[in-house]
């Protein structure tokens, strides 16, 4: 009796030490997880409960204002249940989310989170409901049929993004961004999730291999400059017209002034 009374009445002498150690481990661990300097050391495991927990914390701190504490959506932002890891990886990885301000379209900007944090957020959101996953490396690094990709791109993408991927205008201030420096994985994710005003190109519409071909074509355009010289923004006849009026005709009119001035 006495013993049991003593047990319940007093803490173990090492309890304080243990508590202190536990606190330090958590603080240090959280620091390590959040610090960009040590982020590269740990790979986020899609299935790991810890990744999802970290993602949830990040989500609640950075995204919940608009998307709700359980990602259920609010008046300011849509529900993210079922959008999949690919959508989060695209939106956060290109800096579009967290959004800088409400506008016709989320603007691209330098990403706010590290790759690992982005993955944690992505797997947290993926854990809420099934959705498109981040694509495998084999699909996003090119190596497909550029000619097939170019044809698919012209048919499905060029009406907004321009044949050379230079971007284009949509209604009410929205626009299709240039694709001149978008990574393969983000192009793939954009196709499967349809960010902002883009339609979804699911796997029945354009198969994963065809998506790889589209990426192969865009990589070709990104890596190979125009054989004709400077592209003038790949904007087509408007840029060409401006150029010939300002620089072509401008230079030659300057010459006419010079030719006729010499005689005076």
């Amino acid at each position, binding site marked *: 009796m006495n013993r049991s009374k003593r047990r319940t009445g007093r803490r173990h002498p090492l309890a304080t030490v243990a508590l202190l150690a536990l606190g330090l481990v958590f603080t240090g661990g959280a620091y390590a997880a959040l610090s960009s300097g040590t982020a590269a050391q740990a790979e986020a495991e899609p299935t790991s409960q810890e990744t999802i927990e970290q993602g949830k914390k990040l989500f609640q701190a950075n995204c919940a204002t608009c998307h709700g504490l359980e990602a259920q959506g609010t008046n300011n932002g849509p529900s993210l249940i079922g959008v999949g890891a690919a959508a989060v990886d695209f939106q956060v990885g290109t800096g579009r989310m967290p959004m800088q301000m409400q506008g*016709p379209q989320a603007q691209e900007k330098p990403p706010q989170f590290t790759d690992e944090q982005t993955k944690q957020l992505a797997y947290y959101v993926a854990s809420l409901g099934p959705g498109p996953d981040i694509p495998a490396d084999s699909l996003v690094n090119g190596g497909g049929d*550029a*000619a097939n990709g*170019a*044809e698919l791109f*012209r*048919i499905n993408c*060029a*009406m*907004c*993004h*321009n*044949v*050379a991927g*230079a*971007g*284009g*205008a*949509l*209604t*009410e*201030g929205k*626009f*299709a961004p240039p694709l001149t420096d978008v990574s393969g994985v983000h192009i793939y994710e954009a196709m499967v999730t349809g960010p902002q005003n883009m339609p979804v190109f699911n796997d029945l519409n354009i198969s994963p291999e065809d998506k790889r071909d589209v990426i192969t*074509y865009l990589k*070709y*355009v990104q890596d190979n400059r*125009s*054989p*004709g*010289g*400077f*592209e*003038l923004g*790949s*904007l*087509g*006849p*408007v*840029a*060409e*017209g*401006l*150029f*010939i*009026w300002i*620089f*072509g*005709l401008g*230079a*030659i*009119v300057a*010459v*006419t*002034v010079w*030719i*006729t*001035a010499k*005689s*005076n």
Partner: protein
Amino acid sequence: MSTAPSTQVTPKRSFTASASVYVNERTSLAGFVKELGRKAFPDHWSFLLGEIALFSFVVILISGTFLTFFFQASMAEVHYDGSYVPLKGVEMSVAMASTLDISFDIRGGLFVRQMHHWAALLFVAAIGLHMLRIFFTGAFRKPREFNWLIGFTLFILAMGEGFTGYSLPDDLLSGNGLRIIDGLIKGIPVIGTWTSFLLFGGEFPGTAIVGRLYTLHILLLPAIVVALIAIHLVLVVVHKHTQYAAPGKTQQNAVGPPILPIYAAKAGGFFFIIFGVLALIASLFTINPIWNYGPYDPSPVSAGTQPDWYIGFADGALRLIPPGWEFVWLDRTWSFNILVPLIAIGIFILLVVAYPFIEAWVKGDHREHHIADRPRNAPTRTAIGAAGVTFYAGLWAAASSDILATHFSLTMEGVIHALQAMVIIGPFVAYFIAKRVCIALQKKDREVVLHGYESGRIVKLPGGEFIEVHQPLDEYDRWKLVSYESYEPLMIRPNARGKITVGQRLRAGMSRWFFEDRIAPVTKGELEASHSAHH
């Protein structure tokens, strides 16, 4: 000792001289060269704008000839098998495949193709600038009205040449352009569909159009252009060149260096400069990258699809029409979204063509004019020109509405509405601003002639008054400022039958509109009065 067959002693001549004699004895060219070589050509940079057009046309002819060696105007389907990887194995027309071969597999082909296209853009741009110079200096007045018509026809033909050339590669961009033309034609009531089927040899796009456009592009249109350029230049020689007012320059003479040798040397050098500038641009800057556009397929339309700049005003006119201007009546679709731009552009073109005749009629002036006006001395004409330029510029800008929207972070709707306002209100604003500016400049000229220009030297008079010394103009400068003609509004007079016709009333009204606000040039009397007041 001499064994020469002739006893006549021929003077010893240089090689050039004997060659000239040899040629002249067989062609009698000497008189021609003597006449033409001594023609004076007034010197002013703005008189060389037409030459830019002429010389870029020569570049177009040379580069175009090279391209015809390799281009095949056929719409037969082939699978591309050239060097450009992202199109390998793609089905396309022979026209497209041969253009790709010119670009990638024929030595110098891409350079010449780009030079041809850049030269074409420069050709039309130079014509446009040349026409503006003619308009704003009144160089279309008697006896040059026909040359205005010929020049205008050349401008239209140049656009036709450009558009047919743009359509030849059968790439996505050119196919989209042709589709718009097809739509325009089909929008014309009654004859539209028939005309479209006639042009395309059946339903769009068919298999005939590239061959037909090729014939127009390399045979018919260039033949007419060359013929009209010849007539245009002969008329320039016949009329003599206009000149700006200066001492010694009159309506009867043309003052400037003679064509031989000075002017010819300058013009020859100028040709090589233009050739060089175009070669430099063609070697450094991509134009019409058909490998990006891919072969024509009626389903895709790329963002940023525009015609070349000179067709932009027509494309812009289509873009500015508000939605819903199409309805069904009498079981027919009436496409006013197409008819209104066509009619508006048609009226604009007719006004440009007819302007020299309208102005002559309003003035009732039957004299010849060889001294070019300074734009400020014809305020109403300059203001009308400014209005026309604004109208055209609004339509032109509208063709790039999507590029304006993306590059200046604007909404497409905002751009369109602003340009709609610019096209409708802009010409009036431009008219009033230009007219006021012209009259203000004339007032300034008058002030300078009468009282000299401000020298910046402040003098204190014995009475304590400060004055700024005005420096009188020298006679050469003064001549430029006073020698222009001022017209007064015509009076309405009854004709031989004692009647005042509607035409006369209209003419008097127009004349009042043109010349009611005017600043008369300083007269000799005024000048003397002002001088005696100053001395």
